[in-house]
């Protein structure tokens, strides 16, 4: 075997927070051969990104490399001079960040940013660099490869921008590219295109790559070999197919099993009045119409899942139901009664019955209040509970969301993990004793294992209390796990709806089929098959 391209031995990295140094990476070994794609998997805080950056000999602000060695093609990066490292980065090692939108300078044209490194460090002429850029845009299947470079970052879509960034990383034909969650911020249908483009490009130029992601199914498509990380340590390492078919460690197995959770389907009582009925609603932001003739109904104790990509109007529908955005036509009926369009005109009782849980629990909890205040306020506000009675009920609610009251009652949100915060949000919604809870992407900001826990909790609460959920999500797997009824939205319209079994049984309606097939599967050949199928459809 040749000498490896990248060799990391016994790497230790520490991060500075809460006035002390804490270990982030605890002795990791990593070997990458030329032309090989290595997948790094783990939940947030596992040290994936830190390790990815370390492969360039870089530590973020507030981090320091305390031990080990990083050897890139015979060169010790930790002992290298800053100028040598600077020459290395961009020319021989490139980095593709998670958010392309935040990584491009919005004031410069794409092509200017693209050729910068090649011209300054690569020693080629500007004209040649531009010719090569156009060629790369073509390989990455960007529309109008000759002219797209003349645009500014805000003039292309998120998926295109991510591909432009990949092209930029490849500008100098680097031997190693680090992809840090390059498709996490994209819709599933866009993700396919980016994944296919990245894979082609890596193959075409024979670069080695580190592919960092929390999504196992995505990594399975890209990587030859997978490393599972947790708490800064290696859990397991194996070739992709071995890893998928026969994981050894319990943690890895639990990651694999996440997608198997299913709720029991509930019979739909068609006869009674729906708890919530959205009737032919239209809405607009200013003069821009965003919802067209949207109708849906939700029965007591059921879960209605609204699925769609970003910009499909699913969150707008939630805003409309809560009364934050007035409808321009149509109405929202609650238990057969029309709700006032503006939440300020709704009675306390009407407000109490519909509660909301948000996508990002960090901003949904007031950082200056203790947990007991956060959960206790709806109790005092709606039900008039005070003092001991209020505290007793808060304790009860905390037990219901599986958090120990004695430990958590007096804490502040910042002392909690993401999953715990989301549970507090659930408890706050439950405190109002509602009949309907709107869940707006409640699991998207959470790691898979944590998200599964939250879904199970929501399901148990539904069984106990008979509360109905309007579940807004972009994730097909979540819908498959928990929905009774499904509504599919696209560009502000409802394009498909029905019971879970009906929606998930072929034949699919066009857009629904596209959405479902775009959801990555745990099969390493999934992407190949899908692309072959889609290519066959186009005459």
């Amino acid at each position, binding site marked *: 075997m040749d000498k490896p391209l990248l060799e990391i031995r016994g790497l230790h990295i520490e991060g500075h927070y809460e006035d002390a140094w804490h270990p982030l990476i605890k002795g990791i070994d990593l070997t990458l051969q030329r032309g090989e794609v290595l997948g790094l998997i783990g939940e947030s805080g596992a040290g994936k990104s830190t390790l990815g950056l370390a492969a360039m000999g870089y530590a973020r602000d507030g981090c320091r490399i305390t031990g080990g060695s990083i050897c890139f093609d015979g060169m010790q990066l930790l002992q290298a001079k800053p100028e040598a490292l600077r020459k290395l980065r961009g020319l021989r090692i490139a980095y593709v960040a998670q958010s392309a939108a935040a990584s491009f300078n919005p004031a410069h044209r794409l092509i200017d940013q693209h050729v910068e490194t090649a011209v300054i460090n690569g020693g080629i002429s500007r004209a040649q660099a531009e010719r090569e850029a156009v060629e790369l845009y073509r390989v990455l299947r960007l529309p109008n490869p000759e002219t797209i470079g003349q645009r500014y970052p805000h003039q292309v879509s998120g998926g295109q921008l991510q591909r432009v960034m990949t092209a930029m990383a490849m500008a100098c034909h680097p031997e190693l590219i680090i992809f840090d969650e390059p498709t996490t911020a994209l819709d599933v249908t866009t993700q396919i295109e980016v994944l296919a483009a990245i894979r082609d490009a890596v193959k075409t130029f024979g670069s080695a790559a580190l592919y960092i992601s929390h999504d196992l199914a995505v990594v399975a498509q890209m990587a030859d070999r997978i490393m599972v990380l947790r708490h800064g340590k290696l859990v397991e390492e194996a070739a992709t197919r071995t890893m998928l078919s026969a994981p050894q460690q319990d943690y890895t197995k639990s990651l694999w099993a996440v997608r198997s959770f299913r709720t029991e389907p509930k019979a739909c009582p068609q006869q009674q009045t729906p708890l919530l009925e959205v009737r032919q609603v239209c809405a607009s932001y200013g003069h821009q119409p965003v919802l067209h003739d949207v109708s849906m109904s939700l029965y007591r104790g059921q879960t209605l899942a609204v699925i769609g990509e970003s910009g499909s109007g699913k969150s707008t529908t939630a805003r409309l139901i809560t009364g934050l955005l007035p409808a321009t036509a149509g109405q929202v009926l609650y238990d057969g009664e029309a709700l006032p369009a503006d939440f300020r005109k709704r009675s*306390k009782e009407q407000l109490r019955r519909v509660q909301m849980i948000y996508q990002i629990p960090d901003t949904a909890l007031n950082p200056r*209040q203790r947990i007991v205040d956060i959960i206790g306020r709806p109790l005092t506000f709606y039900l008039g509970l005070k003092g001991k009675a209020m505290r007793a009920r808060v304790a009860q609610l905390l037990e219901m969301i599986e958090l120990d009251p004695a430990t958590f009652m007096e804490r502040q949100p910042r002392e909690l993990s993401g999953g715990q915060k989301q549970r507090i949000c659930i408890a706050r919604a439950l405190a109002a004793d509602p009949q309907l809870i709107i869940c707006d992407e409640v699991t998207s900001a959470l790691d898979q294992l944590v998200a599964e826990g939250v879904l199970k909790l929501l399901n148990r609460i539904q069984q106990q209390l008979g509360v109905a959920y309007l579940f807004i999500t972009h994730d097909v797997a979540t819908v498959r796990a928990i929905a009774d009824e499904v509504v599919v939205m696209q560009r502000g319209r409802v394009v498909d709806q029905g019971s879970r079994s009906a929606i998930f049984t072929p034949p699919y309606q066009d857009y629904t089929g596209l959405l479902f097939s775009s959801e990555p599967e745990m099969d390493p050949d999934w992407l190949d098959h899908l692309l072959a199928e889609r290519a066959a459809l186009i005459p």
Partner: protein
Amino acid sequence: MSLLTQLARAPLSARFGLLIILLYVLVALFAPLLAPYGETQVVGDGFAPWSGQFLLGTDNLGRDMFSRLVYGARNTLGIAFLTTALAFLVGGLGGLVAAIKGGVIDQGLSRVVDILMAIPQLIFALLILSVVGTNATSLVLVIALLDSTRVFRLARAVAMTVVVQDFVEAARLRGEGLWWLVTREVLPNAAAPLIAEFGLRFCFVFLFISALSFLGLGIQPPTADWGSMVRDNAVLITFGDISPLLPALAVALITVSVNFVVDWMLHKSSGLKEC
């Protein structure tokens, strides 16, 4: 964390600042007990030197310098503090309400503030004070009103970033009233920059009062005031006597101390926000 442990962990500068502020407050409160003579009592010849009888000598009219310094703490500190507090009450509340309510209320309040800010502060103050006459009440009210416009703009800007967060929306959807939104949801999260501004504002008000006193429209004689004490006795500096600089030193010391404490509080609250 209790107040005591927080104090124990405070940096040296903050502890020094707190000590000085405490000292000033005590002096202001117990002025009649500490001062050997009355505030406006003429006790000797003008410009008497430092001695056992007159600790820091006497001023141009023969009043005891030390006594006036002690009483000055009461007047200058009291008026500056009252003015700043009032400015924050009016401007801060207005800014928060404007940010939360938005729309017509925000536009209305903001335009009034723009108009008030369009006229140079000192000239505006002189104008109003010469119309309504100079006394402590009108001095406090006028400066508070003018300074509240600055506080309004800061409070509104800070609150704007808070009101867009989900927890404020959650509180609105719960049906909470304006008072709850202002005091429980927005203010605690906008407090850090406002506290910092309080320290700066306090010093500005101090200087502003001194400037007005210099022009004869500030605190009126014979009331002891550190600003006018410097001016009245400035002649002595030519004779190499540092007595007239003592009131200026008192101003400087309290200014620095207040800012030490404010810096510490700001650092503490912003540190909490990061993690």
